[in-house]
């Protein structure tokens, strides 16, 4: 079965293209990208005014299965991913129980094969139970399909433990994904320490709680030679540390979330728990430093840290509510609204930040809009309006920091291995 994607703007920094072209897909594989292509039989999709990108990957999501299926499942989370224009997600191991064994990773892989709408790459825990005391069975998890390792959600307190972990993970050539938070220094803070913590009477965590751990992880990556990927960086100081480390040739990559790029602590004027995330929203100056890091290549990836929570958990006193916002469905629209439409970034840079950069950071299969690559394609309607209402979400949870916003642009169609996961804005098989 052939598919002709006709007359869209095809943008792929890795393939070095940005032109109005046709794309032909056959049997799940891209077989041609060029001008005035035709097919004898099959389906032709008119793509005028659309932008075609290589399949976007979100390398930081929480799918909650197993154990917290009332928040999200592999089925619902991957449908949310398709709705947001992603063809692949990497899911964090802090499920219940923690994904810290080969059999658990096998469960995720099998469950994804049976129920997922996009590709799912499991990230295994670094330490058993994410307790930070003893290595999890990393080799077993690699054998079952884990693509990287992380104690996301808490980090590893002991530098000695972290060093052992990096040394061991290096053996498999995979990335150690760091959640950078010095817990005693963060001191139970629920917002950034500074203006908002003072004004709102909320416990704050200082930027230094992240930065001391970023510095430690970089030093350990230099010591061990392990690939280091820094999750959800939020401060100007972290960007400086990564920029310096990259200049020294350290094997380090990093990601930022849309909420740290497009919101800052000034948004917290009421006690709305949907604005409670970890790391917390920082200052406007931090936000500007993150955007500068995107522009100069210090930051490799935009990843959402999609963290679904049920209303009964989230609608509590700010200090009691769990951390996190959903992100899969709003990320691309936010990027278009705040970076593309403003002329800050072009689509080629977005193909790097949302496809090639994140894939390279975790060593996921490369996707290009070139003959011979799998047909993982994100088709964007940059002029579409998105009114972010609770009903608009496909995710099982609605705890979005962006609810109520009016955004520009969204994915209209998503192909995963030549199969539609999103068609005309509707998730297939929802």
């Amino acid at each position, binding site marked *: 079965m052939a598919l002709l994607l006709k007359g869209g703007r095809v943008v792929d920094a890795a393939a070095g293209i940005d032109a109005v072209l046709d794309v032909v897909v056959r049997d799940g594989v891209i077989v041609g990208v060029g001008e005035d292509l035709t097919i004898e039989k099959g389906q032709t999709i008119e793509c005028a005014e659309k932008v075609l990108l290589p399949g976007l990957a979100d390398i930081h999501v929480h799918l909650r299965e197993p154990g917290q299926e009332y928040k999200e499942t592999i089925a619902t989370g991957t449908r949310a991913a398709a709705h947001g224009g992603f063809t692949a997600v990497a899911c964090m191991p802090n499920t219940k129980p923690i994904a810290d064994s080969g059999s658990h990773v096998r469960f995720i892989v099998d469950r994804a094969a049976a129920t997922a709408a996009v590709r799912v790459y499991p990230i295994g825990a670094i330490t058993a139970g994410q307790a930070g005391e003893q290595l999890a069975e990393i080799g077993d998890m690699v054998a079952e399909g884990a693509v990287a390792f992380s104690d996301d959600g808490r980090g590893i307190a002991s530098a000695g433990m972290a060093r052992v972990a990096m040394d061991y993970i290096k053996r498999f050539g995979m990335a150690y994904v760091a959640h950078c938070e010095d817990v005693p220094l963060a001191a139970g803070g629920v917002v950034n320490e*500074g203006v908002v*913590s*003072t*004004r*709102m009477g909320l416990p704050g965590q200082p930027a230094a709680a992240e930065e001391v751990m970023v510095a430690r992880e970089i030093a350990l990556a230099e010591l061990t030679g392990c690939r280091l990927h820094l999750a959800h960086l939020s401060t100007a100081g972290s960007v400086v540390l990564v920029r310096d480390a990259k200049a020294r040739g350290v094997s380090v990559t990093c990601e930022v979330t849309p909420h740290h790029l497009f919101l800052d602590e000034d948004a917290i004027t009421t*006690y709305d728990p949907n604005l409670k995330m970890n790391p917390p929203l920082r200052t406007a100056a931090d936000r500007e430093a993150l955007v500068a890091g995107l522009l100069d290549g210090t930051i490799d990836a935009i990843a959402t840290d999609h963290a679904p929570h049920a209303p009964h958990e989230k*609608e509590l*006193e700010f200090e*009691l509510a769990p951390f996190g916002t959903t992100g899969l469905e709003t990320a691309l629209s936010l990027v278009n609204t705040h970076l593309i439409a403003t002329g800050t970034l072009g689509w080629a840079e977005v193909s790097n930040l949302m496809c090639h950069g994140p894939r390279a950071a975790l060593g996921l299969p490369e996707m290009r809009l070139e003959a011979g690559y799998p047909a993982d394609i994100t088709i964007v309607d940059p002029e579409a309006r998105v009114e972010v209402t609770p009903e608009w979400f496909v995710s099982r949870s609605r705890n979005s920091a962006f609810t109520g916003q009016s955004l520009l642009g969204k994915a209209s169609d998503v192909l995963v291995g030549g199969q539609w996961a999103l068609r005309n804005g509707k998730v297939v098989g929802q």
Partner: protein
Amino acid sequence: MLSSKHLMTMGDVSAEEIALILDTAESFSEVNQRRIKKLPTLRGRTVVNLFFEPSTRTRTSFEIAAKRLSADGVNFSASASATVKGETLRDTAKTLAAMSCDLVIVRHKYAGAPQMLAEAMDCSIVNGGDGVHEHPTQALLDLYTMRQALGKLEGLRVGIVGDVCHSRVAGSLVPALRKVGATPIIIGPPTLMPARPDVLGAEVAYDLDEVLPTLDVAYLLRVQFERAAQMPFPSNREYATLYGMNVARMVKLPSHAIVMHPGPMNRGVEISADVADSPRSVILGQVESGVAVRMAVMYLLLGGADSGAAA
């Protein structure tokens, strides 16, 4: 009347409204000296004391204030309520709303609880202390006490000494002092200072002895050991040596200056017994003012003016 139906934070209250509350409290304070201490002003109105944290002084003060205005007062304390069974604050609020009360005074362990209640209920809300955020009626009664003792508020220099970062009292008192033209100076070790004192509008000093001669009010805060993750100073003894108010320090204050404390006191830590019991101390005056000020707040929030003169 007040512009808001709630009293959440001192940031919401204008200087004129502060003056109105204090003047109204003054007329109520006369009632509190009578043998029959009761006015019919809020007859038929229901006032709920919703206390999620143990409190004797504040709750009793509100309770007496409500009774003196003839309101029907109800105590809803967390230990005797559904919250221990896991009910959310929102559900508690809706349950109370269904019982049609007129005013809820809420004391809660977490900042923002009064705002959550206001979203779920139609009645007036008074913040009786939320986490380490604010405690506006305490600030108002402190202003009342200062005005009574010193004859004015404008131009006063008020040293707020000690555990400022864990103090909802300071959280309300600092902005309140700014509004009335006084100068708040927060004094203590950096381990007890808020992250951004400038946001509250306070000057900062680390050396109490240097500042003492310039103060009109020395306001001592209780050290809230229970809230600190790490002990913020080496020992109580060293804290008392550097920041405790004792007689030797009291004599460094100008002769007109007063000593205040929101209670309960840690005698021997932030205040010595002889200072607490000295004539310079207006600590019991603060407690007395509390009833009149809370009567004024209830009266003004519930539109008491509709039901007759204040006193």
